[in-house]
């Protein structure tokens, strides 16, 4: 197989692995954060405003890790720099 095919295969597999592993850890982290926040709100309903605001900020922080993985996956699939390089080079 020529290099273009290899680049395609490796890019798709890499983006799939990146998205899969990159979604697991933030999902666990967000689950833990929401669980703690819910039990805190159940114990102290008066503090619901402060707790949920902090929860939103924390969720945004955690979620940005998953978003990094998503951006890298999307770049690998739709705007792959290695692929463009190999296509632009004459003869693959």
């Amino acid at each position, binding site marked *: 197989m020529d290099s273009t095919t290899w680049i395609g295969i490796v890019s798709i597999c890499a983006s799939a692995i990146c998205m899969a592993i990159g979604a697991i850890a933030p999902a666990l982290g967000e689950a833990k954060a929401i669980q703690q926040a819910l039990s805190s709100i159940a114990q102290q309903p008066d503090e619901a*405003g*402060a707790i949920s*605001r902090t929860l*939103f*900020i924390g969720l*945004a*922080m955690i*979620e*940005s890790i998953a*978003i*990094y993985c*998503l*951006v890298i996956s*999307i*770049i690998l699939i*739709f*705007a792959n720099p290695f692929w463009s390089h190999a296509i632009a080079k004459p003869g693959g």
Partner: protein
Amino acid sequence: MEITPDHIVLFQWNGFHLNATIAYTWAVMALLVALSWLATRGIRLEGPRSRWQNVMEAVVLAIRGQVREVSGGAGGDGCLPFIGALFLFIAVSNELHAVPGWHAPTGSLSTTAALALCVAFSVPIYGIRKAGLKHYLSHYLSPVFFMFPIHMISEISRTIALAVRLFGNIMSGSMVVALLLVIAPLFFPVLIQALDLIIGLIQAYIFAILAMVYIAAAVRNEDETQPEQSS
């Protein structure tokens, strides 16, 4: 497939490219300015208020309430115009996603990087305004001087995180809709677009609140190191 509206050139003249990001940013700015001008035209303190003024007062009061909650008191009112502008710009440009043919300017990394740079530069500005240049810079060397690179890395990484978070959320939203249009047209894209509207509003809120948290942290640092200035 376009992953950023930067590549869509709407107008070209003598090497000057007007891409979709700039055009739609101008559209959002024009919309916001026109709405504010209409609302503040007949503004008054006494007597019956116009409906426009009521709406604008509700918006400003809601933003001020959030800013005060984060900054802990009325001390954060100095950055209310900045935070409010950030929130309104991002929220309007995300929510106009419901308009057909709209490319949200926040779906471009250029726009979000510019917004994040605004936040990155406004943090030292507000910190220095609160406690002076020397005291602000001294917090970079606390607790010991070799923590300086760590402080710098934290400032840079949180700026990049701000930009990439907003860009990733908005760009992935429009991209998922485009993919679903190919796979399952007619019904599912509408649901996902409704979800995108919520996500857009939440991201605008998170961007503004994070900017406020960073500014409040810089200002609060000065309070701890300089207790006599806080009174």
